[in-house]
């Protein structure tokens, strides 16, 4: 009797699960059925208002750390999605009707864009419904035999020696058994193909680079790798180098990605615990603002970065669904699994996601460790930012077309949803352009965009928008401020749209372009990509003139005109304010300074030591305030506790400025010896707690109206600034 119990229990559990799934599907079916019930206006209004109240009440409870916040959050998401689905059904069933073929085309186009946005919204809700928080793990809990060997590779193409040196030095300081860690520099800028190319100057440059990097590697005890030909870009570089490695795990770091000392300590345990894990990914933390953060918001230290939404929320959501994917760097991969798929994939130019997809399809698992342990450099200029995003968008589109994840039988349905969410997101340029240009169809050409009345728009569309915004706030509020997504999308849409078209035309065409980093930003100038925004602005402005004409000529349809006018004006304000981004601001400092509050000591000699607190810190210097007034000598030593090394370090500094009133002191680090270099890197870049605290500092939600106010407040000034700079350029 006893022996029969376990199978019986299992059967019961299986039956219970099956029943649960059936009930879930049934209630989902009823919800979709209810979402498609046609209602008259007043009742729909009551329904919409009721749901809005529920969404706001439940989400407020969820945000305010209620005991049952997860349940409230789930309730808000489900009922909010219900309203959005109801809206999309209504749009599809009732609002697509026109006798005019051009109107019909415009109508369908707008509807497809809305369907796209709706699907992205729903997939976003699904993916992020239960973000996974993993506990901290450490290799200290494992015996030496269990700890795997690691090959840490730093692929490089054209990055400077200085940049690489920082990364390699940081890698050398990783808290991992030295006998189990091999560090490799994979130089694709010094390949035989480059060294022996016909262009003599370029060949000489490549040869010099090779020699310098070989010398650097030798000095740091790092293995230097290069190859004969530059084939298959980064993926080819890594795969070629892998042939000469035999570590159980492979860590890939981009040239500018400086690891903190605990990177392997926190990631490798996941590999040890589960042999089916092929990837442990960690966030990419950027210690400088991207051009939009720098040019537009000037709020790098106050506002969540664009990256934060993906790494702090979405990857955690994907992790729950076993779909967190490889992001090209800051990740640990299992060599055995990599070999099973022929190394890093290279069919697309986003080799990372493609590789993860292939291994997920084989049934292997991924892990996402939500701890910033890599600090990298964001692109400096708007054009390089666009270049980077074009690559991502094209790569994802290639994966969609070439790999068809939605048909991949190896993936679970939820993994397909996860991948489709990540991939489809990059088709936003289509929807964004439609949302930007559609109002013009009505205002300038009189096209009917939606076969609905003003009342219907108020009772269906507006509640859907309100609820969508609210759910976005619930899901991403801490990591993405209102309207920021819109601004990023508008900035990228025209360029990415063209890039996507080339993929759609021929999926194999796009080639890997290395994202430029560390560009010169020594003066203010208008981005070379500004022209398309000028045209867009002119069109939107003419659109608003068209609206005025509509008000005059067809006063009977003023309600509809008003809706489209408001929509177009919203677009116009966003576009005008974005002009600020297109003015590339001068960057005075070589490295971005981040807030820091460390307690430090300043020593002029062994007997002259002062106390102070850091105000900010960069990889080249620091700003601090002394606790008492004293004029410092030109050169001092900064004594501080480096968590990365678990000891105090002394850093030689040059005093650049001292303000006796504010007691503020600016220091520049002096790195004359290897030890000094290591100390500076360890102190400034290798402490994951520093990045963590900085990130937490800036991840905070703001209200929609605050976001809107912010956008409106910067809307007009850049316009005049552009005119002024253009005139100045001409004169």
């Amino acid at each position, binding site marked *: 009797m006893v022996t029969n119990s376990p199978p019986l229990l299992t059967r019961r559990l299986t039956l219970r699960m099956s029943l649960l799934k059936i009930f879930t599907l049934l209630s989902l079916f009823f*919800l979709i059925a209810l979402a498609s019930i046609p209602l008259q206006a007043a*009742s729909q209004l009551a*329904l919409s208002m009721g749901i809005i109240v529920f969404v706001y009440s439940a989400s407020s409870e969820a945000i305010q750390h209620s005991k049952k916040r*997860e349940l409230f959050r789930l309730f808000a998401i489900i009922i909010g999605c219900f309203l959005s689905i109801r809206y999309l059904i209504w749009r599809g069933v009732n609002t697509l009707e026109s006798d005019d073929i051009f109107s019909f085309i415009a109508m369908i186009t707008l509807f497809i864009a809305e369907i796209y946005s709706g699907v992205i919204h729903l997939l976003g809700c699904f993916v992020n419904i239960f973000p996974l928080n993993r506990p901290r793990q450490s290799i200290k809990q494992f015996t030496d035999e269990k700890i795997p060997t690691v090959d840490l590779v730093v692929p490089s193409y054209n990055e400077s020696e200085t940049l690489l040196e920082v990364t390699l030095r940081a890698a050398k300081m990783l808290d991992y058994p030295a006998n189990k860690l091999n560090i490799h520099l994979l130089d694709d800028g010094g390949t035989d193909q480059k060294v022996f190319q016909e262009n003599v100057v370029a060949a000489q440059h490549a040869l010099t680079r090779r020699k310098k990097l070989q010398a650097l590697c030798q000095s740091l005890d790092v293995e230097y790798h290069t190859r004969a030909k530059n084939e298959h870009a980064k993926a080819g570089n890594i795969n070629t180098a892998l042939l000469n490695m035999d570590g159980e795990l492979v860590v890939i770091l981009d040239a500018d990605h400086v690891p903190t000392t605990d990177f392997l300590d926190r990631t490798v345990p996941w590999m040890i615990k589960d042999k089916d894990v092929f990837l442990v990914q960690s966030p990419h933390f950027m210690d400088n603002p991207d051009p939009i953060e720098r040019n537009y918001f000037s709020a790098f230290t106050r506002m969540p970065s664009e990256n934060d939404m993906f790494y702090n929320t979405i990857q955690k959501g994907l992790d729950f669904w076993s779909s967190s994917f490889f992001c090209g760097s800051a990740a640990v991969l299992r060599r055995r699994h990599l070999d099973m798929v022929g190394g890093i994939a290279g069919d697309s130019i986003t080799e990372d996601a493609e590789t993860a997809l292939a291994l997920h399809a084989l049934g292997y698992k991924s892990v996402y460790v939500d701890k910033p342990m890599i600090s990298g450099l964001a692109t400096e200029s708007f054009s390089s930012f666009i270049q980077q995003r074009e690559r991502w968008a094209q790569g994802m589109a290639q994966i969609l077309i070439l790999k068809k994840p939605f048909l991949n039988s190896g993936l679970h349905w939820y993994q397909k949803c996860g991948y489709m969410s990540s991939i489809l997101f990059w088709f936003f340029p289509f929807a964004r352009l439609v949302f930007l240009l559609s109002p013009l169809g009505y205002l300038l050409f009189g096209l009917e965009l939606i076969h609905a009345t003003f009342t219907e728009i108020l009772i269906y569309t507006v509640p859907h928008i309100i609820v969508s915004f609210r759910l976005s706030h619930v899901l991403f509020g801490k990591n993405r401020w209102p309207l920021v997504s819109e601004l990023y999308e508008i900035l990228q849409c025209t360029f990415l749209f063209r890039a996507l078209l080339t993929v759609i035309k021929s999926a194999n065409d796009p080639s890997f372009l290395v994202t430029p980093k560390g560009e010169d930003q020594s003066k203010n100038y208008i981005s070379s990509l500004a022209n398309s925004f000028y045209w867009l602005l002119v069109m939107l402005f003419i659109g608003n003139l068209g609206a005025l004409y509509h008000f005059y000529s067809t006063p009977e349809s003023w309600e509809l005109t008003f809706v489209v006018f408001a929509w177009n004006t919203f677009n116009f304000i966003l576009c005008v304010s974005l002009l600020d981004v297109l003015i590339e601001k001068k960057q005075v400092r070589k490295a971005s300074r981040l807030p820091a509050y460390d307690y430090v000591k300043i020593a002029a000699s062994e007997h002259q030591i002062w106390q102070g607190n850091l105000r900010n810190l960069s990889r080249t210097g620091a700003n601090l305030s002394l606790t008492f007034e004293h004029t410092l000598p030109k050169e001092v030593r900064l004594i501080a506790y480096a968590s990365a090394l678990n000891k105090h370090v002394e850093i030689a500094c040059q005093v650049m400025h001292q303000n006796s009133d504010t007691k503020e002191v600016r220091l520049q680090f002096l790195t004359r010896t290897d030890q000094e270099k290591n100390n500076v890197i360890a102190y400034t870049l290798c402490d994951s707690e520093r990045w963590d605290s900085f990130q937490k500092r800036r991840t905070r939600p703001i209200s929609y109206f605050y976001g809107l106010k912010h956008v409106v407040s910067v809307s007009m000034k850049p316009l005049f600034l552009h005119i002024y700079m253009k005139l100045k350029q001409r004169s």
Partner: protein
Amino acid sequence: MLPLKLIQPYVRLLTLLLIAFLSLPAQAKTSNEFRLSEFYGGNSLLRLNGERPVQDLGITLSPLLAVSSATLHLKATSSITMLQERSILNVRFNNVTIGQITLNPNKPNLQADVRIPSELWRPQYNTLTFAASQYVDRCQDSNAPDLWSEINLYNSYIAFETTKVINQLNLQKLSDFFNPGIGGQHQAQIFTLDNKQENDIVNKYAIPAVAQALALRTQYQSLHIDYQNIESKAADTKSIVQPISESKYRQSSWYITDKKADDIHVLIGTKNSLQQALSEKTLEEINGPYLRIEKTPAVIIEGEELVASHIRLIVSGLSEQDVVRAATTLAYMDDRLNPDQSINVHSTVNNAFIPQQQVTLQPGKSYTLSELGVTAINFNGPGLLTKKIEIRLPADFYASETDTVELTLDFSYGAGYEDGSTFNITVNGKVIHGLKLDKKDGDFYHNYTLSIPARLFDGGKNELAFHVNQNSIQLIGECRSVNGDYLHFQLDTDSKIELPTAAHLARQPDLRLLGQTGYPFAQYQTQDDTGIYITQATMRSAALTMAGKLAQSSGNLIPNLYVEMGIPTTLTDTAMVLATPKDLSAELYSDLSTAITDSKRWPYRLQNKLYNRVTANDNQNLQPNTAAGFTTQQSTLGDFSLVLATKNPVADKTGTLFIIAAETTERLTERISELVQGPLWSQLAGDFFAWDNAKSPLIVMQVSSAYMLGATDSWTALGAWGTNHPWYLLLIIVAIVFMFMVFTWLLLKRRHQKIKEDWKE
């Protein structure tokens, strides 16, 4: 004695002639006065503004009437600034000027009697025209505000002397008797003989069908039915008294005590049951469903007219079913196609026939204006000119929010239109489109398409109106003016209206819809049995009057409408109960805030937040609340009567129950006669309607929960339910979302647990 003997034959002849003359009431002269306001749809004042205003009043006359004399007694007021020598009010009758009245500034209040020559009267339709020439100055602005006069239609009237002339009595004349115009018959007596079975087929179906048939002939005028069952032995008694005249007496209308001979009455029954009242010849003719119109002989015995001559309509047949078929034929038939005095109906074929579908426009189809009965729309001359078209939709027309009615117009206007010339289109009084007529040389529009939200159209009658304001060239300078006669606007009758497909659902209870369309007794998709239940035999007349009114409202026969004595435990889904409070049981009001039994339950206004919402014509947005409270009391209905509409609590399926109650049967009959008259019937609204006169209601309220009635797919029905109960729907959604959330939560937690187990390993 001799001279007496000599003159005796002459005296007898004279007496006979006199009697004969007196016994021919059809040719008797009758005098009547009709206020002009009865011929005018607007208010009781007819205002004539501008330089040359013209207004027409249509006067409908029964074709059976010959006018021997008529005088128009006119009361009017004109502006005191008029130029006496040039300002005239012309009175025309059928386009012939019959009077010219000077508009004297010194006597602004004028009274005039204008004789209307007899020869100008036409059978049925006549037009009385008031055309004023109004001048205040030699050179004047034709739109000057002091160019006005007004006719008091209420105090003005036409006095007639008419004679009823029936040249050849046949079934063609039947409609003439019930003509809605002057001289038409607005009440009818229906007789049966020895009809003791209260709920036999004749009583139940045939008589209501006859009542409907007659009411349909009176069109918009009310028709009061007086039903009497006569004991045939009454005829025997008479025959014993006067055996010589027995045959003649039998053929006469001996059952009528009223000697007024003008009106037609109906005798209905099977051949057997009418033996005592019909001639042998007539009885021989009855071989099946049978209709006959005839003049019954007068019975004069010893110089005393015992029975007057009457005109009667016989509805008969060999069996009760034949009588029903004859009655049904009477309702359907076009009288003009029946030149005979009698017809035998062989068969009536109505395959899948629902009368309402013949009356209303059909959703999903398109109609040209000519198909809607519009002959031509031409607007000539200056001023605001309007053409109204009735769009009659199914009472339960239920279009979705985004459905549109497509109006495709072909129209043109000539040259010379000046600023302010406009073309506006309204639906039920709401402007749905406007166009400036601003092309100096005129313009032509082909396939000018308008998409009108279908929700602007109500179930039942709708008014589509085209308003053209035509302004002529303004000439500046002394004594320069243009009369604007050249202005010409034409709307082609090939213009069409296309209706969307629609579900068939109506919000109930709704007395307005009942008043306008007869719904739910007359429905577009089904023709289930509908009963009018009476609690006392003496209420049958009132029930028949109501049946006739329902047919009028629906515009067609309601074939399955019957009148039944008593209230069974289960009523038809749609039902009407006529009763006194003591006849009504509390079961009918179990869920209501209103009850009309001996003990009354009233949702007084201050206890009922819905009472003031029934004034709006469009009650689509009425929230599905019931009255907030009620007061129970012991009281009577006094003089008033009331209609209460509610969801039928004793029906098999969803339906509406109408309860009409008054304190006594007599009061009920009287009040129903008042209710079916135009002024009161047109004010029906809400679901609680009380009245005590024929002019205006005592109180109108909405007291019951709304619900949807009709045949449609379950999806639309669900939507309709949701529309009526949005908060319930919201609760259901929240409940299912909650369930889904719980299930999802369990699944998510399980997955989370599984992941955690993985990392523990």
